[in-house]
């Protein structure tokens, strides 16, 4: 246990000094600010408070940025140690491989929690400044926060998996960028193309919803949009959102972190330092 905490402490400091994390956190805070200010139109007509509207736009932002931050802090976890030669040293200590990875996992989730607190905090503070009714959207914001952490944890696990597969930091970095492009950008385009080509057939009604839920990023978006009162405010973002139970989407983003971590830990066992 003291070993796991030791790793968590050291990795947290490393991530805190990671320039990418700082840049992305600031980016997120700026975007959140802009989205809040831009969305501060006549919200009254839609019946939604300012914060709920902000949360809806933040959800769209988080789908891109949270996985990116998660992958950028995690890709070096194993490959970096292999390259520096510290993995042999680490594994000569009385620690388990599982403990090594778990310590890093805790640290990386913690750094993500801090980054999101800053980003979402800026948005929330602005929303409260603009709309005294913003407290009505607090529940949605809290939901967005913890589901973002689950989404991030999934991608941290995926980052570790890439790190163990690639074994070299440069390769791992390329791999996670590819993973991000595929899971976040291309996956949806592919599904969309499938739906269009299928024209309301079996794919659209049976396969498509499950493929959507199977991807943690899509499940995250569905869950937040379906569960939020602001669904109406953001109507049209995901037509399928209404047809899928938020519970299944929640199950998906809750299972992903464990599955991804377990897979990475299993791959890690096979690495010879």
């Amino acid at each position, binding site marked *: 246990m003291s*070993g796991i905490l*030791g790793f968590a402490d*050291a990795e947290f400091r*490393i991530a805190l000094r*990671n320039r990418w994390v700082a840049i992305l956190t600031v980016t997120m805070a700026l975007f959140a600010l802009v989205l809040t200010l831009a969305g501060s139109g006549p919200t009254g007509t839609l019946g939604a408070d300012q914060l709920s509207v902000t949360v809806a736009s933040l959800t769209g932002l988080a789908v891109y940025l949270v996985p990116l931050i998660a992958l950028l802090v995690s890709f070096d976890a194993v490959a970096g140690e292999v390259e520096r030669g*510290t993995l*042999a040293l680490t594994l000569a200590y009385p620690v388990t491989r599982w403990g090594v990875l778990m310590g890093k996992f805790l640290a990386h989730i913690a750094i993500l929690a801090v980054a999101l607190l800053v980003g979402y905090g800026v948005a929330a503070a602005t929303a409260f400044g603009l709309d005294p009714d913003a407290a009505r959207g607090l529940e949605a914001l809290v939901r967005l926060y913890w589901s973002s952490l689950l989404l991030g944890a999934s991608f941290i696990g995926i980052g570790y998996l890439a790190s163990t597969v690639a074994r070299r930091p440069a390769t791992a970095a390329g791999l996670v960028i590819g993973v991000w492009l595929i899971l976040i950008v291309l996956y949806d385009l592919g599904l969309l193309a499938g739906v269009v080509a299928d024209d309301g057939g079996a794919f659209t009604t049976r396969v498509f919803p499950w493929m959507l839920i199977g991807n943690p990023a899509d499940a995250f978006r569905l869950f937040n949009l379906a569960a939020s009162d602001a669904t109406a405010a953001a109507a049209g973002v995901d037509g399928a959102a209404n047809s899928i139970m938020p519970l299944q989407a929640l199950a998906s983003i809750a299972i992903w972190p464990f599955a991804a971590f377990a897979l990475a830990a299993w791959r890690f066992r096979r690495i010879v330092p």
Partner: protein
Amino acid sequence: MHNLTIDGVSKSFDGISALRDVSFSVDAGQKVALLGHNGAGKTTLMKAILGLQGADSGRIEVLGSAPGSARARASVAYLPENVAFHSALTGREQMRLYLRLRRQPARLADDLLDRVGLGPAAGRRIGTYSKGMRQKVGLAQALIGQPRLLILDEPTSGLDPVARRDFYAILDDLARGGASILLSSHALTEVEARTDRIVILSKGAVVADDTLIGLRAQAGLPTHIQVAARQGAADEVAQRLSAGRRNGVMVELTCTPEDKLARLGEITALGPLVRDLDVVPPSLDDIYEHFSRRAER
């Protein structure tokens, strides 16, 4: 009681044999140097001892346990070759991590860094350290706790002469406390003076395993004796010792280790003709070359 026993260990990588039937042991309080050419298998053997990379055959016993077992890892310290720590951490933070992994209080970090002369740099990022300073971080972590076996892969590479001497002094302390030390090195002169036994690997096989004195005797290499004669007496001295004259005053002769005392007797018998003498035993360089050459044949 052996702290480390290696018995008939072999290992090959895709058909290339890295270790061939290696056997030797290290006792408590012993400092053993592992020598050998690049690619001789030193690092491979060390990784097998640590259980990081299993051997194909043979038996290794570390402090009575299997290599890499929890019990072995609890009392074995390791310094890998060319280790580079994360550049974003300070020396102190890095040591705190390793202390925690050994369940030691993290506040000992500064003491350990002081011990290897890194005290003033403890709060600086490792990325700003020089090569030798980074190596010292590696040494400091190997001293954590009371390791009973230290496996050090080229520990003095990059260290300045003073740091080397300090490092060997620390090893002497540890050995006096009963720790066993196995270290690899390419710096033969320092190993010669600072270790109890020398194991030479060549192409994965042990070609020599003895104390320096034992290796000298086995190699049977000649000892050089340099005699400084009184002014103008060099020719007479050379003639009476039936040796070669090097210049106006120096006479040089070589002899086998067994003849050495007899020859010294002859020289002292010359009395006032001789002003001074130096006995130059074969250096470890010579001995090393002898055993590696013999292995090649």
